[in-house]
């Protein structure tokens, strides 16, 4: 557990630093811009805290810097490409799966089922590649390893951000007033 605490602290510090730096130029026009700036800060904090050892971390940093450049011109895709494409892909996968489920298995169709299973796995692997940053260039084995690492790091990031939110939203402590 020690490791995760340190990691979360790293994320928190990077995040606070990043948000503060970003806050310097904070006359953002809209809420969306602020939100995407905060998300970029959070992702950069995560990538920086995680270091450059895992592949996803490097790819994430690269994407962020690319997205930052793209943001200077009015490009919307950089920030929003995250969710919609992958969600549609996964919806497609689950829809397909539902339609196949009722297939009977006999000896003749066993091989077909085998092929089908492989197809399903391959589809999901593709979806996973889209989700994990930098997943394109990896073989399946490293992809799984990266996914594991990425999932753990994401969880730490979520926890850290929740902690930060709670800290910022804390009701004013009467103790403070005395100082």
């Amino acid at each position: 557990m020690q490791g995760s605490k340190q990691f979360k602290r790293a994320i928190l510090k990077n995040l606070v630093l990043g948000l503060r730096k970003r806050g310097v130029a904070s006359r953002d026009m809209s809420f969306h811009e602020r939100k995407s700036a905060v998300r970029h800060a959070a992702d950069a904090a995560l990538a920086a805290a995680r270091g450059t050892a895992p592949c996803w971390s490097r790819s994430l940093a690269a994407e962020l810097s690319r997205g930052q450049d793209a943001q200077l011109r009015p490009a919307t895709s950089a920030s929003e490409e995250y969710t919609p494409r992958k969600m549609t892909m996964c919806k497609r996968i689950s829809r397909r799966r539902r339609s196949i489920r009722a297939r009977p298995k006999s000896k003749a169709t066993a091989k077909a089922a085998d092929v089908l299973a492989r197809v399903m796995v391959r589809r999901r692997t593709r979806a996973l590649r889209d989700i994990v940053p930098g997943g394109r260039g990896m073989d399946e084995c490293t992809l799984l390893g990266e996914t594991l690492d990425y999932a753990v790091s994401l969880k730490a990031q979520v926890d850290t951000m929740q902690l930060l939110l709670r800290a910022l939203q804390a009701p004013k402590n009467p103790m403070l007033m005395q100082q």
Partner: protein
Amino acid sequence: MADEHFFPAGDFASGLGAAPFFGSSGPYAPAPPPMPLDVAACAAAMAPFGMMLPPWAAELHLPADSAAATTTTAGHFDSALSSLVSSPAHASGGGAGSDDVAAIGDLIGRLGSICNTAASASNSCYSTPLSSPPRGTSAAAAMAFRGYHPGVQLAPPLETTGRLSRVASSKSLGAGAAASAPALENGEAPETTSAKAAGAPAKGAARKRKGKASSSAATAAATNGSPKRTKVIAGDGEGKCGEDAAAGDASEEKKPEPVKDYIHVRARRGQATDSHSLAERVRREKISERMKLLQSLVPGCNKITGKALMLDEIINYVQSLQRQVEFLSMKLATMNPELEVDAQYLPSDKDTMMHHVDAAAFSYGGDVFAGGALPPTTMESCTSTAFHPGTSAFGWAHDHDLQSIVNHDMTNGHGQQSHHHHGGQQQQQATVSHMKVEQ
């Protein structure tokens, strides 16, 4: 929570950033590495990879100026990290050095005192409780860093146990550094796979860590020479790799400790022996091993058999986490004003400011939990118990600035916003606790 023991063993940069790079050369040499240094080092470290962090991230260098700027001019990886290594040694040695380092070391020390574990004050968070990190490993560390440069094959004192070797890792534990590097397969990206492979067996082994802290402590202490991931998990993981290796031995006939770049695999009895099927089998086992790790990570996947379904769950889990990040960043964006206030404090003492804000964050967290309004997540409950001594330790000495921030926060945050946040937060809390329940 299941994922807690999967913690990316020591790969992250809080000066830890160096940890995977250190390899077996030494325990995670920097005791309490200053955080901003790490960020700077990471920014510097990432620069050679041809990426630029967002422009504002360049300013992440700033707090580390005095300590790291001397060497991080070109942003060279090894120089940055070696400066990291040397400066914390410096800082922890006497608390001397520049103001930066002293202040940050101070902060780290406090953070260390927050931690529950009873370890030395400045070292608790950053070193395994078992090992006392020697300080003079900067040379070895620098050497290890150079080995990490992308495209370069790993230099020997790298921690990695190679892609496959559960067995190899157990042996390398005893053997120390030398065995690690040759364990790599040919043509694989050195850092990621090695760190990953080292991570994976460590993680898999770390699964059992929870119940067996003491025994693993003993084994880890014994095997401390090698891969220093500086995390308790790493230490335990390495110790546990021995157990895994024993199991691995039974299932896979012995993999002699690789001393070259090849992984030696022996065919099992009654199985095809041509190279293709062997390689195929090795690959399949790697994949299934990782799938098992993922299965224990993702909540509610114990009963799911089959690769496709498992991958489905994994995808859903990662997507839900990403959505959570989106949601939280949206909420953070709405309450940004108090962070923006810091702009006026920027010209002055950045580091103490940062450490104020952190103090605020942690102590507020403690207050909130003390209020008991929200059901704490497991991690936060751990930290919350630590916060109470923490808050008293801080003493609120530095909080004039903080108060104004708080005032701003309250004035801006009140009204409809706070109400909305509260509702949103409850929902968020519900999702989190729901996820926990699922396990």
